[in-house]
């Protein structure tokens, strides 16, 4: 790692000010992606702005029809939350499948969503549930937030403070893990609401995306059989050492069926 200055602000405005005033500074939440990136010298920021002292960013709040999760809440806390387990069990299951126990101790929902890794789990849950990303400046709908490979709608100096999830009637997540990294080779989140079904896919392409044909089929009949014949187009899907695009396309259907199964169980 190249040396960097280290700041631990105790308020969001201070953190935002540091981010804007120090050229080439970066936010660090749990550091589960950033620290390996620094170690490989893929990034060498002049300063890190650490959000860990901001206690207001940690924890979960029951809003009746929504659950709001603070940006600095670790995956292990979401996975173990009775509130999430009861109201959105699919999201608790997703959090329990991220990385390994040590990663879940440190990694945060805000960090994962802001990073928008194409194979991360949370973006599928956030888009699949149609959550709202709450930042230091505004609220952003999930459909407008994820813009592609590691790209989000966040502006310079804008900090995610929380994510608000609507409670679905049913929801489930299934993923096919890359065995070494435990990232999603393909992960599918399915959520059923009174006004329809949302299906979000991570790992298969350069960014998380929805599958409208599956959404309309599942809105008619929320059962794995309803989507068994739906194949997704391989155009734009990822081909790499782990899997070719056609295999990923195949896995999208398989994982979507399993996610519906999980939602129904």
């Amino acid at each position: 790692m190249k040396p960097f200055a280290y700041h631990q602000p105790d308020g969001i405005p201070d953190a935002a000010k540091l981010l804007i005033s120090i050229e080439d500074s970066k936010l660090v939440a749990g550091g589960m992606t950033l620290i390996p990136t620094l170690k490989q010298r893929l990034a060498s920021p002049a300063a890190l702005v650490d959000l860990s002292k901001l206690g207001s960013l940690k924890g979960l709040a029951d809003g009746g029809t929504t659950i709001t999760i603070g940006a600095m809440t670790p995956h292990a806390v979401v996975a173990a939350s009775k509130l999430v387990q009861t109201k959105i069990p699919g999201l608790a299951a997703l959090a329990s499948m991220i990385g390994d126990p040590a990663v879940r101790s440190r990694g945060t929902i805000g960090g994962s969503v802001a990073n928008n890794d194409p194979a991360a789990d949370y973006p599928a849950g956030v888009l699949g549930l149609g959550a709202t990303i709450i930042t230091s400046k505004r609220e952003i709908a999930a459909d407008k937030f994820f813009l592609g490979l590691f790209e989000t709608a966040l502006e310079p100096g804008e900090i995610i403070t929380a994510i608000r999830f609507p409670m679905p009637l049913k929801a489930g997540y299934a993923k096919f893990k890359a065995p070494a990294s435990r990232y999603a080779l393909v992960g599918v989140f399915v959520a059923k609401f009174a006004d329809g079904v949302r299906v979000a896919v991570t790992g298969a392409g350069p960014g998380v995306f929805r599958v409208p044909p599956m959404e309309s089929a599942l809105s008619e009949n929320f059962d794995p059989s309803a989507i068994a014949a739906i194949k997704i187009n391989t155009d734009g899907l990822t081909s790499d050492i782990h899997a070719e695009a056609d295999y990923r396309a195949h896995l999208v259907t398989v994982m979507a069926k399993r996610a519906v199964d999980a939602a129904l169980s």
Partner: protein
Amino acid sequence: MQISFTLNGRPTTVDVEPATLVAELLREQLNLTGTHIGCDTSQCGACVVHLDGLPVKSCTLLAPALDGATLLTIEGLQGAPGSNQMHPMQEAFREHHGLQCGFCTPGMLMTAVALATEKPDLTEADVRHGLEGNICRCTGYQNIVVSVMAGAAAMNAAKGE
């Protein structure tokens, strides 16, 4: 920068560069070489320590995160206080041959103790899922899983006494 934390029960203050990994700090500055660095890419889990009671990979943790925290390393793992005995999980690994070369063992033990502390009634599936972040290249995991189950049972029994 100066950071102060509790290390294996003792108050500790050190001067570190912010770009210092906890694994480096432990091994090179504090001479606690029981924490092993296997892959140094947060895959293998040989470097797992407990930060405020939770398992974390010390090769993927910056030293400033320790400030004000409580850190437990493999050197701090022990049996009943004052008994000079090994921790029940360590005893279980010895009894059930849960190691061969021993390189991954410190991380396995720290992860295992965290698993058993979080969920006293561990199932074999829990153990296998919980050890996903710890790689062993010798044992094929079978004896490690047996050891963790036995160690968890021994920890429960010790709690009941």
